[in-house]
């Protein structure tokens, strides 16, 4: 599923790459930028964490890098892009600067930086408006999952259409991507891919979902077949099976007797009782047994 997401087939998607301290997701983010550029799309990058040279070596024409790296909080007099400009009006103005007819892809590196300085409900509202407004075709954001509280990460990921969680893989260059994709109809699909990224930022999927970890070993050990090494025969040959089915069991009745017993007449086993005078014994009345 990683390749489908990279191809960006569905518009209006919001992809979050969630990484942690053990495995950085920036390479995957660069692959997404590369894939979008190869699709002849305009890409706007809000760069808070790394500078332009580090993200993309040589400037590319369709890539618009908004430098929020040098002065994100507006301490100097002329900041290029501050974190407080992350709201709908400013972003719409920013995106209108390009004259490309197709709506652009917005890449946010990273969302964690914004969440540190702007309240999460405001960030969620802006992201929601971006998606609904149609100003952008797709949003790809990097989120550091271990930098925030669980509720914050959960709230932001709840808005996303796909969440890719990267974790270090078994071998050195590998990484494991756990993908959760929510379609508009509410269906949730989950997948796991092991991938590496080449130097030219193409993603190579190694193998799908090969869980060689300890999870699988335990049930395999317990499921040894108990009928494997026996000294007696547990199976039936065909002749034996026929003979078994022909055998009349002692309490198996014929069909007629079964129906007779099932639909027995209601008066077959009735108990006729006429109340007797001796049966009026009242346990609570102490005078009942007086012979007066």
């Amino acid at each position, binding site marked *: 599923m990683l390749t489908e997401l990279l191809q960006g087939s569905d518009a209006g998607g919001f992809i979050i790459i969630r990484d942690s301290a053990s495995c950085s997701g920036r390479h995957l983010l660069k692959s997404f930028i590369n894939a979008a550029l190869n699709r002849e799309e305009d890409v706007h990058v809000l760069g808070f964490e790394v500078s332009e040279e580090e993200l993309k070596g040589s400037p590319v024409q369709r890539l618009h890098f908004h430098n929020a790296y040098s002065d994100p909080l507006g301490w100097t007099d002329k900041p290029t892009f501050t974190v407080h400009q992350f709201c709908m009006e400013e972003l719409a103005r920013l995106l209108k600067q390009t004259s490309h007819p197709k709506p652009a892809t917005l890449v946010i590196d990273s969302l964690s930086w914004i969440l540190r300085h702007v*309240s*999460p*409900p405001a960030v*969620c*509202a802006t992201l*929601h*408006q971006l998606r*609904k407004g149609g100003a952008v075709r797709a949003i790809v954001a990097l989120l550091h999952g271990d930098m925030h*509280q*669980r*509720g*914050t990460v*959960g*709230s*932001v990921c*709840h*808005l996303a259409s796909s969440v890719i969680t990267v974790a270090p893989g078994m071998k050195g260059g590998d990484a494991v991507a756990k993908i*959760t994709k*929510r379609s508009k109809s*509410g*269906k*949730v699909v*989950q997948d796991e891919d092991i991938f590496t990224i080449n130097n030219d930022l193409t993603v190579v999927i190694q193998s799908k979902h090969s869980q060689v970890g300890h999870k699988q070993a335990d049930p395999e050990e317990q499921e040894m077949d108990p009928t494997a090494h026996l000294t007696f025969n547990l199976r039936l040959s065909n002749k034996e099976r026929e003979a078994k089915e022909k055998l009349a*069991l002692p309490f*198996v009745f014929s*069909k007629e007797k*079964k*129906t007779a*017993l*099932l*639909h027995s007449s209601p008066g077959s086993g009735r108990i006729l009782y006429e109340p007797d005078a001796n049966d009026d014994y009242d346990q609570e009345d102490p005078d009942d047994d007086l012979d007066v």
Partner: protein
Amino acid sequence: MAAPVSTVGKPSAERLPLNTTSFQKKTRTKLISIPGTRPSVQNGQLLVSTGVTSLDYLLGGGLAVGTVLLVEEDRYDSYSRMILKYFLAEGVVCRHELFVASAQDNPDDILQELPAPILDDVAIHKPVEQPRLSCEPQDSLDAMKIAWRYQNLPKVQSALASSSRFGHYYDVSKTMEPEIRQAAKCHRFYLTEHPTQSPPTHSTMLESYSALLKSLQEVINSEGFDVAAPMSKSRNILRIGLPSLGSALWGDDLSCHDNPRNGHALATFFYGLRAMLRSSLAVAVVTVPSHLIQDRALMGNITRLCDNAIALESFKGSERETNPLYKDYHGLLHVRQVPHLNCLASKLPDHKDLAFKLKRKQFTIELCQPVSTIGCQKSKVKLLTVA
């Protein structure tokens, strides 16, 4: 509405079930019976169906008018949204009025995705109370070779359902026809269309919640759902659906921070909502993303402020998905709160481990049955359950 209804009118289903009598209780007061409702057999409350018959059974026959049902969402909000859609679809079929308020999706989009009702009168899952008639074909006796004496006994039913037909069934794979949907009157509240005014500093409630309560109050007063309104015109029930209340899009940081700044805003909203509903002919189903709310004390507050509360836990994505015990089900259902309306104690559900399954034509809630793993796959140990 907490007052008991003393008339037992004709049942609202099109076809009389087989076990009703024609006896009608004589009464002096003439209360207008509202379509789609029936009085509870336990305490005489006026009940409406939630759209899911198993859920009706769990709540004691249905949802009492004037109460709030809180549904704690599962991780990806698929099944809680489904319950909300069933609730609204039931409102359309019973000709109640609807009120949908949402911050994320447009209410029109939610209303367009309602499941289509199955309108033929044959019940899909009719609980087998009557024993099989004696005109059964003979070859059915071969169904049980050894235990044939049990042929005629009624089957043990593990799905929770009540005997008489109250709700309707829906087909999830089809959406409701536009003609049926437009016959019902819907009121909408979309948060992005309401511009946020300056926040009042002295109130404990966010302005998004205040705006929602004001809008609800206007609808209830103007459309005559208030109990105090004159009884001359025909009454109807207002069904209120509030998906994903308390999420970050409502401006609430309850689901974002461990120590939210305005942590009591949502609780204040529920307090106001319940007070409003007690004096009107309305029912509310609210879904809250409780898996994001880290403060369990606040979540407990919110649960206490609602009358009924259930929590859904879906197996998708958790390690329980591969557990063979749960392979037939889509998730677990926990009952967090049962209502005590006009009484001291309430009827607690007998069974605690309930699981749900969303099939195409039914959303069933069942007891979680253990599956014997050794041997043939089809054999299950069926516990004796309540009918």
